[in-house]
């Protein structure tokens, strides 16, 4: 009898043993477990444009300059110092010594040249960070010079992005069919950062090990594991149970609910992620600024911030968000004023307006924003149809200008008002490249073009603030709010520093665990 039941018994015993087999990994002091909602597409600085990919790229690579802790200004990282030619057409960087790639080879000027040549040659999204870089010249092993075809004021800031990561030229040995090691670098890293990818099990987990040759302080973790857990409820349970130390992509309602969980800390910081609406400026009646202003007065900003965002947001004040230089703290804000909206529509001679609101589910705020606006507009005699489409479809419709009102969300790639002002308002960038409201005002065009060629930051700031005064008045976009960036972690995790430029990037080299 016992013999026949032995297999069952053994299985049960083994399961029981496993169940109680010591503490879970997440509670090991030298291992950090982060639950991510999505598998990062790639870890290649030359092609990756998602924050999800930056999660891996930032800890694995160093750049010439980096963001200063929580601030959006840059400080030296691989470069020890730099100079700019008076005409602003060349930048020379002196490299610090002692930085080494994860195979022990030194970071030199040739590596810098290799990295930037590669980004340029691949001509994918990251290439747009350096639109005017003409040539990278090796002056000597520790000195490198960038030659620009036109002055590009945000250059230094752009060097701090993922695209500016310095890659070990030896990566080229993994190139197949002239792909510049794209296939290999998609899943491996070859940088001088604190960590390197040691294993990537697709859709399951990514393991980072410390780079033994890292020039900085030895990290506290001997391993950092990113687990891919798509479902929010599952991520939450893992965190609450202590199987994960940190989880990303936490929606506002869940953040609220988790506040009472023991041992869990909610990190909520003002971000530069803005939520707004596109008004189709080239299409009647939105070609009339009065109609655009009317719509701007019909949005219930306070209601959206308090209700939809549960207070985890702040109403915008001009196109450049709070927290970035170029933001105008005195900038004009629209208020919720239906009487004014009605009057403006009457002034514009518009009646019986029937419009559509094109949105997707990519941002959970968009639908409630639309519903609220629909209700407000109904009160002033405007009928608005909600048009829910797939996100890729929404992007296509907006890029083609095939919409009345559409939803938008934006984060800057580098800390410069360029990311908003030159991309949103430049008439040469109409459609997919950024000016999806199809807005054009020669005065604004002039101001932002000047600002791009000016080096002096004070002067640039004034130009951008002047431009915002006009764009606020012209109302090509309904500027809604900037969101907080929310994630949750165990209270045992120490040393996290939030930088609004580095969403989904965790400074794991400086973090530690207390238990």
């Amino acid at each position, binding site marked *: 009898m016992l013999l026949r039941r032995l297999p069952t018994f053994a299985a049960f015993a083994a399961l029981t043993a496993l169940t109680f087999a010591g503490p879970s990994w997440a509670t090991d002091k030298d291992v950090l477990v982060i639950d991510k909602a*999505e598998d990062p597409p790639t870890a290649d600085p030359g092609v990756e444009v998602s924050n999800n990919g930056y999660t891996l790229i930032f800890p694995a690579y160093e750049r010439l300059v980096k963001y200063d802790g929580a601030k959006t200004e840059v400080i030296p990282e691989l470069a020890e110092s730099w100079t700019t030619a008076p005409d602003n057409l060349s930048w020379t960087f002196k490299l610090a010594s002692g930085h080494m790639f994860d195979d022990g080879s030194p970071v030199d000027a040739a590596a810098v040249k290799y990295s930037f040549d590669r980004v340029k040659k691949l001509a994918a999204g990251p290439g747009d960070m350096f639109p005017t870089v003409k040539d990278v010249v090796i002056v000597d092993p520790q000195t490198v010079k960038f030659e620009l075809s036109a002055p590009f004021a945000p250059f230094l800031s752009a060097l701090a992005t993922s695209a500016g990561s310095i890659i070990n030229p030896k990566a080229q040995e993994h190139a197949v069919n002239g792909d510049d090691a794209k296939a290999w670098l998609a899943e491996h890293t070859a940088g001088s950062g604190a960590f390197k990818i040691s294993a990537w099990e697709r859709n*399951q987990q990514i393991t980072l090990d410390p780079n033994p040759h890292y020039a900085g302080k030895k990290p506290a973790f001997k391993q950092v594991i990113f*687990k891919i857990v798509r479902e929010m409820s599952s991520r939450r349970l893992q965190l609450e149970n202590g199987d994960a130390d940190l989880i990303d992509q936490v929606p506002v309602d869940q953040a609220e609910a988790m506040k009472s969980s023991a041992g869990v800390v909610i990190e909520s910081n003002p971000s530069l992620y803005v939520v707004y609406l596109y008004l189709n400026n080239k299409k009647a009646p939105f070609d009339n600024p009065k109609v655009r202003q009317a719509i701007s007065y019909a949005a219930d900003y306070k209601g959206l911030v308090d209700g939809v965002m549960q207070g985890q947001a702040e109403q915008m004040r001009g196109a450049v968000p709070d927290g970035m230089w170029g933001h105008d703290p005195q900038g004009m804000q629209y208020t919720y004023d239906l009487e004014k909206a009605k009057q403006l529509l009457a002034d514009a001679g518009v009646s019986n307006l029937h419009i559509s609101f094109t949105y997707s589910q990519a941002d959970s705020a968009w639908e409630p924003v639309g519903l609220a606006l629909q209700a407000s507009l109904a009160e002033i005699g405007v009928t608005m149809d909600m048009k829910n489409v797939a996100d890729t479809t929404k992007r*296509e419709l907006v890029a083609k200008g095939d919409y009345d009102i559409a939803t938008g969300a934006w984060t800057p790639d580098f800390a410069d008002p360029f990311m908003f002002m030159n991309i949103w308002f430049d008439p040469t960038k109409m459609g997919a490249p950024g000016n999806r409201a199809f807005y054009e005002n020669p005065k604004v065009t002039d101001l932002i073009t000047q600002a791009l060629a000016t080096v002096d930051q004070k002067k640039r700031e004034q130009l951008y603030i002047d431009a915002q005064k006009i764009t606020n008045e012209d109302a090509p976009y309904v500027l809604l709010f900037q969101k907080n960036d929310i994630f949750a972690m165990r209270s045992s995790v120490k040393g996290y520093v939030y930088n609004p430029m580095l969403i989904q990037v965790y400074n794991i080299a400086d973090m530690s665990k207390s238990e």
Partner: protein
Amino acid sequence: MSLISTILRRLVLLVFVVAGVAIITFTISHLIPGDPAQLIAGDKASAQTLAHVRQELGLDKPVTQQFVIYVKQLLSGDLGQSLRTRRPVAGDIALFLPATLELGIAALVMAIMIGVPLGVLSAIYKDGPVDQAARVVSVAGISMPVFWFGLALILLFYVKIPILPGSGRITLGIAAPPRITGFFLVDSLVAGDLKAFWSSLYHLILPAFVLAFANLGIITRQIRGSMLDVLQEDYVRTARANGLSRSAVILRHALPNALIPSVTLLGLAFGDLLYGAVLTETIFAWPGMGSYVVSSIQTLDFPAIMGFTIVASLGYVLINLAVDLTYMVLDPQIRELG
């Protein structure tokens, strides 16, 4: 008709099915407005970058030409490259399909192991307490949303009574077994890694049960029904009259015959399981085809969507073929008609 000719005929048909699926999926994928180049190059990409990416991916060519290229690749066994991960689609499918199959097979085995005895007992003790209980289980299985049930079980067995893991295929820190079949249970046994085997088995329990539960009810009802029919048959009564014990009659005579109609059902159930796996995989962070497909659809990753659809339709047709062949072997009458 002989077995061989049936197989040949069906394989020819298979080519047409796959071709049809390829044409339909390709057309639909390319009719949906949406520019994959924009997703890849990002929101802020310049017009030049977009043009470059489109050209690199061949998206600048006319759709008909793109289709011709796709078919040519397909004929040489190449499913193309994923737009999102830049990996060969065939490689991705080879990576994720075994995880889904392992989960699906485990669920099917579980559903059969519970469903068949439960169905038999329901038929024997018709309208008794067992039958009533089985009916409740069936209705619950069919009507309970996978999503809700999965989360409820995680809450119960991972949070409240923490005896089972809530996600993944293997415990963190235990290395996955060296890849041979992609089935962790098989590979770990081959490698002689018992720790990995138990951990994989242990991770399989909850998701497989959630998946099995939906089909459990259907299997139970089916077995019960055909068992009741068979029990009415003359040969069963004869066997009984000849003094064979009740259990011998049921196990040796009635059950095998009652199982024949269930073969089709099991084939269909397996298809259902793979489909249901999409949700189950999401809840349990199971790295299979489900999450791969969801991500691919979200990013309009045409080659990945196409590759998955073609492989899935192939699988479906092959499962059906297997079902029919099993039928023919089990019941010679069908062979005559076939």
